């Protein structure tokens, strides 16, 4: 794509330069299972009606989120800087969203 400065400096920053194919495939499997689980509990009235449904569902999707971000987006192996560039805004965005939900009375119900 563009030939802006330093397009050829990025490689070699990963901590260990071997393919992670296997890890990625295992992750894919876990992601699939979690997605299945999410939908499954959605269809089990006993769980869906219980107080645990929301926290469980949110944790499951948080795990998926974390897996993709850490492994597929290789934040885990990459320079810390990228983690900061993403994590900072993520915290502010998350905090703002939660504050907004609280202000509109969506958290109390």
């Amino acid at each position, binding site marked *: *794509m*563009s*030939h*802006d*400065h*330093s397009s050829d400096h990025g490689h070699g920053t990963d901590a260990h330069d071997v393919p992670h194919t296997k890890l990625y495939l295992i992750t894919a499997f876990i992601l699939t299972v979690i997605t299945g689980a999410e939908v499954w509990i959605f269809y089990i009235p006993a769980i869906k009606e219980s107080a645990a449904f929301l926290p469980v569902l949110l944790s499951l999707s948080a795990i998926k989120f974390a897996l993709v971000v850490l492994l597929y987006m290789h934040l885990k192996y990459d320079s810390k*800087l990228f983690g900061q*560039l993403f994590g*900072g*805004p993520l915290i*502010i*965005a998350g*905090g*703002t969203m939660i*504050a*907004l939900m609280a*202000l*509109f009375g969506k958290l109390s119900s």
Partner: protein
Amino acid sequence: MATIASAPAHSAAKSENPDGIWSWITTVDHKRIGQLYLYTAMFFFIWGGVEAAIIRAQLAKPNMGLVSADFYNQLFTMHGTTMVFLAIMPLSAAFFNYLIPLQIGARDVAFPRLNAFSYWVYLFGGIFISLPILFQVAPDGGWFGYAPLTTQPYSPEINIDFWVIGLQILGVASLAAAFNFITTIINMRAPGMTLMRMPMFTWMSFVVQFLVVLAFPVITIALIFLMFDRVFGSTFFSVSAGGDPLRWQHLFWIFGHPEVYILILPAFGLVSEILPTHSRKPLFGYPVMVYSGILIGFLGFGVWAHHMFSVGMGPVADTVFSLTTMLIAIPTGVKIFNWIFTMWGGQIRFTSAMLFSIGLIAIFTIGGISGIMHSSPPADLQQTDTYFVVAHFHYVLFGGAIMGIYAGVYHYFPKITGRFMDETQGKWHFWTNFIGMNLTFFPMHFSGLLGMPRRIYTYDAGQGWDTFNMLSTIGTVIIILSTLIFLWNFLRSRNNGAIAGGNPWDAPSLEWSIPSPPPEYNFKNIPQVTSRYPLWDLNHPEMSAGAEHATVDAAQAASAHASPLRIETETMTAKEAGIPMPVNTAKPILAAFLMCAMLSGLLFFKNGSMTIAMILMVGGALAFAGTMYAWLYAPLEEEH
């Protein structure tokens, strides 16, 4: 003061690019783009100032009939919008562009063409949103455009469409620039320029870019909701469909409050450069200054609802936002005191730049204190939407941001043009400005607390506000005269000012180690940086005795493409120096134009011909995509 009397004032002649208009249109040089920002933003500052002047003339006496109610509403809406988005932000951007690469020892920004794109988008967006007032069809919903007033049923005309689309265009410019500067500051620093050695202006700019990156998406979304409501009939803020006006207010202020720190922090940065230089003393408590800047930015995201104390959020929310707001006084106070103690024990030279910096400390504090008065919700219930708020924010904006920028202009004018501005006129400018601004805005505290609402095009006699309003208007006349002095000085000094050398103020940071104006490649040799005040180390070894700084490891310097810092006095072209430079290109301006054309199609979609709309939107999108394709595949620098 080391002046090299024989040096040519303008090295532009030595550029490979002829100095014609085309070279400015196609430029990708951050210094030229910085100047484009500077001139354009100064133009818009006057534009917004003339709007303010009409406002003040109309309010000079009760029951005046200079302008109609509708036109007045357009005037204050556009005055606020112009000053915030078209004057102060771009004035700051002028300094970002000009200074950041120079301060960190880089030859340009990370993405020079994107930089040009940002500027052109800003220019076209500015024209788009400003022109309608000449035809009395300008936006008239206030600078925060509260729904549902701005929705289709209550503002069916085209006015608000200009605002909704114009602000989105301007948002693109700010966002693109922010990504660019974040990357530049992270990745283009000269060897040895660690984060904690960065000049304070670069630091504050760095914080500001994050505020932009986080705040602008929110207003973009809010504007898109409003635009969809107006253009496509969605129901986000529709009263009959159950839409919630507070949704708009929250989204706007989640953007709006960080925005006010976007406006002030660059000025804080400039002042933090000027005070040490003109007192010949390092900045007091550099690390704390850095952290307080970051903290102000961070806390700035948790206080937005202090603009909404009168909407009835309930006692708990009021309390929370009140307390978070008060917290901001702490890091800001740290800055104030650290500045004062930077001067303490120094050798203060009362240059114009210094006067404006000291002026900022004196005046911003007043605005900050009235901010704290707002932060107490019960008290704010008496103050909000009155002239007391108008007083508060002009003290911080005019007394803070504008004063800081004036200081920056006086300080950096010699770097940009190679010549000084006239100091006597500068002092006249300062004192008239100081008196004028206090005379204009101080009485507003009184008119506000004595009951005068803001955004009223007229007021009745006998309300006890007459004297204060007259004083405010007289003050504005003084500000106008003061601004004229400045403009005269500025325009004249470009060619007639006394010649300044590379480092006329004996300043400590890298931008002063190269000739004025700087050659197109900035640094012939990328310098190795070993401390916060490299030029003082070099020129005044006695000043840096005892301070923390590393020694240059020759091998490290060599491996890092750098060489020990030295004062450069020679100006040659990039080719002579053997430095590859980005080639000029018209693609950024073309892409910017097409993007604006594409977005303005929405205007026709809603208010005019469908055919024109389709041509603009579809044609614009295709042409834009084509331009981007050509842009991305064209090399930045000449192949060699």
